[in-house]
């Protein structure tokens, strides 16, 4: 089974801190995604990556950056955390050639910014 692992289940950070959310997949997938999930809004794409060192902005990239130095790892970075970034963050991957839909999700990281 494909496994997508997010390093933290819960995180509490202070406003202004730099925050790293880590995601690792074990199936050599090309595509990786970062979403945030908020009640009533569903999932919104922050960034995605279709190859190592390749990234593209999603629908809500402001305040976030990403890093993909190795194929299995996709990191989401909040340069200066703000309270409006309190949310559930979901990482996903898929192995389709070219861009494909997210197929395998991690269990999420619930981030609280105080």
């Amino acid at each position: 089974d494909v496994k997508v692992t997010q390093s933290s289940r819960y995180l509490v950070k202070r406003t202004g801190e730099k925050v790293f959310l880590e995601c690792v997949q074990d199936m050599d997938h090309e595509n990786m995604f970062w979403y945030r999930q908020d009640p009533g809004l569903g999932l919104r794409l922050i960034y995605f990556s279709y190859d190592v060192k390749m990234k593209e902005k999603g629908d809500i990239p402001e305040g976030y950056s990403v890093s993909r130095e190795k194929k299995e790892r996709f990191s989401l970075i909040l340069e200066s955390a703000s309270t409006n970034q309190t949310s559930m963050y979901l990482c996903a991957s898929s192995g389709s050639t070219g861009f494909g839909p997210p197929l395998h999700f991690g269990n999420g990281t619930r981030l609280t910014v105080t």
Partner: protein
Amino acid sequence: AQSVTQLDSQVPVFEEAPVELRCNYSSSVSVYLFWYVQYPNQGLQLLLKYLSGSTLVKSINGFEAEFNKSQTSFHLRKPSVHISDTAEYFCAVSVYNFNKFYFGSGTKLNVKP
């Protein structure tokens, strides 16, 4: 532009009753359609998908969805639900080569004994 509407934020239903979770999309081009399920404290899992061919698609756990192009809908149905079906269900739409992928706001299915 594409969008996905899930009109019902919550659907309560008794065990063994039928259920329909509604999903409508807006798109001027051909689409691919998906349903995902999220069980409590877990990530999303792909439940079923429509890419082409038969408009009726089925999952392994008894759910089915029908692509209706004229009504731009992709409603999810199950004839008899179980307690274990309690979860949040997300409809999603994509176009062409999946370059854009949009999720609906989700419907929480609460199955009561």
